[in-house]
């Protein structure tokens, strides 16, 4: 990527492909729009196939992260194309809608689809963060934090967040958390393909075991 905004010397640039998956209508597109454009609308179109957005993060003084967000259609039949969409992804958000129990039940299905179709170069699953979206409309009776922690451990998620694209709750935090995990993987298993710029930088030690958070 010979990007125009050439990094200053010693600055390292990463390009990460991150998937956003989950059932139809859980708010995948809204989360991305909120994160990338700081916007929310009731009028987003249903995603047909796949859509993309790019978020550039000045991670620290020496690191620039380009996050490619892949917004994957939620309807089940588009699952027949996910192998192509998932290729070379290094992280994922799996989203469900706290107001609809069925979308939470589908989380495991999505996670399984993910793990069966894409792996890190070292063969381990890509880090996935679970997003409990629409928490602004949360009703009582949904999972409590300790249940969610357990669900994540058992389901192989690196963490979970309650989010609201509408009220801008926890979106940045969730993204930061995922990027930390991706960078931690990168540190252990540098992947040349995802790397741009000069290959010489010692990353800060990252807490890969970083505690899952909720709001």
């Amino acid at each position, binding site marked *: 990527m*010979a990007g125009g905004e050439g990094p200053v010397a010693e600055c390292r640039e990463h390009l990460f492909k991150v998937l956003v998956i989950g059932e*139809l209508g859980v708010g995948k597109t809204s989360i991305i729009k909120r994160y990338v*454009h700081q*916007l929310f609308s009731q009028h987003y*179109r249903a995603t047909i*196939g796949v*859509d993309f957005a790019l978020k550039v993060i000045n991670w620290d003084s020496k690191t620039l992260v380009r996050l490619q967000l892949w917004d994957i259609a939620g309807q089940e039949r588009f699952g*027949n194309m996910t192998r*192509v969409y998932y290729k070379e992804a290094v992280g994922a958000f799996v989203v469900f809608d706290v107001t609809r129990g069925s979308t939470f039940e589908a989380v495991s299905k999505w996670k399984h689809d993910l793990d069966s179709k894409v792996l890190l170069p070292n063969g381990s699953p890509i880090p996935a963060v679970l997003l409990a979206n629409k928490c602004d409309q949360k009703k009582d009776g949904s999972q409590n934090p300790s249940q969610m922690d357990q669900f994540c451990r058992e389901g192989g998620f690196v963490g979970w967040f309650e989010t609201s694209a509408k009220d801008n709750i926890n979106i940045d935090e969730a993204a930061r958390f995922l990027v930390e995990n991706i960078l931690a993987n990168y540190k252990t298993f540098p992947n040349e393909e995802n790397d741009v710029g000069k290959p010489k930088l010692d990353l800060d030690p990252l807490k890969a075991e970083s505690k899952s958070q909720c709001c």
Partner: protein
Amino acid sequence: MAKSRGGGGPGSPGSARGLAGTRESLAEAGGDELSSLGSDSEVNGGGGGPEERRVDKFGFIVGSRSAEGPLEEVPLEVLRQRESKWLDMLNNWDKWMAKKHKKIRLRCQKGIPPSLRGRAWQYLSGSKVKLEQNVGKFDELDLLPGEPKWLDVIERDLHRQFPFHEMFVSRGGHGQQDLFRVLKAYTLYRPEEGYCQAQAPIAAVLLMHMPAEQAFWCLVQICEKYLPGYYSEKLEAIQLDGQILFSLLHKVSPVAYKHLSKQKIDPILYMTEWFMCAFSRTLPWSSVLRVWDMFFCEGVKIIFRVGLVLLKHTLGSSDKLKSCQGQYETMERLRALSPKIMQETFLVQEVIELPVTERQIEREHLIQLKKWRETHGELQCKSPPRLHGAKAISEAEPPTRKALEPVPSIIVPPGPAPVPKARKSKEKNREKSSGSPANGPGAEGNGAPGAAPELLHPQVSPHHQSKESLCSRESEDTYL
């Protein structure tokens, strides 16, 4: 590629940035809504004074779409001439189809007059014949509750189709209600196919041009004749067409082909929405309509050609590729296409001139099908063969003379008319009447609504050719 658009900053209520009813995309920075649209009032509902929100000539709320450049205005005189030519064709459709098909094609390429577009699409697609053969079927499906799993998905999509078109702007408004009815009816008509999200924009475009029953049959024709298998469970047909498109690109633009190969960009990454929605979410609206005019006449070839033209003019020279160094940049470029190449006149001309034929597509289809079988095994969803346009459809299902008879949209029942089932809106009445040609007097011999289609089909009696007034003919499905 962020497009620079006029208007205020993000969030300013009057800002019209990036609200493309047709071309919204994630990467566009200005995807904010017209905040005033939050209300559920019908834009064109009752009591609309002149101070109501303005819509453009296509029904989109003014300011809701990105600037499309100057629209090509057909001079009024030319338009009137075209209308009268089209009326003549529609009134003698079988003759024109049999003997002067090329002329029909030419006229579709020039653009169908807006006032007759909906009617012409029904004739071209054979949906009019289909409706006449299945009188009452839609009403029957309409009354059934439908399967909850499909209803749930359909309902989630209703407010997400062309939300800035006056028909679909309000939650639960007429447009969204009809969209629901059409999509639900399809899941009942083809339970094994159910509902695919990409059918919603297709149905919505149809509903902008015709009532629900007509739109339903037109959707049926698109799903079964023009694009068979596109919306079926496994989405195999669309993936195959992706491969066909890519292979055709090799001949049309070797540079673009090489570039996409090098960057390992699978066709389904850029063509899924293009093809499944027949470009209705990609092109400026005037171009969408022109493309659909040709598509209904000439079939899927037009979709392939549009795709090829867009690829060729976006990635077809080393100069253009300079800004497409990485996979993401290329995909971004393909999603934020240059307005210049999508402009109606330019695009249509390029599409007409591109030498990609039905035979080439069919030949490539066989090649790709063979490859598919080698890598994926047999196709899991068997689809009927694809029919390449109006002529092929009419030859496969020859219409009866009766089926082509114009049906007046509004009938004032003389004397004791059959009481229509409880129906609310004017629109629904219109469907009812056009769906039941036996309403009028002297229509003996017509099958009763709901009679088996095979009974209706062969009955061609001179009665059915009785002339109606031109006035009533013109009124049929004429959406001004």
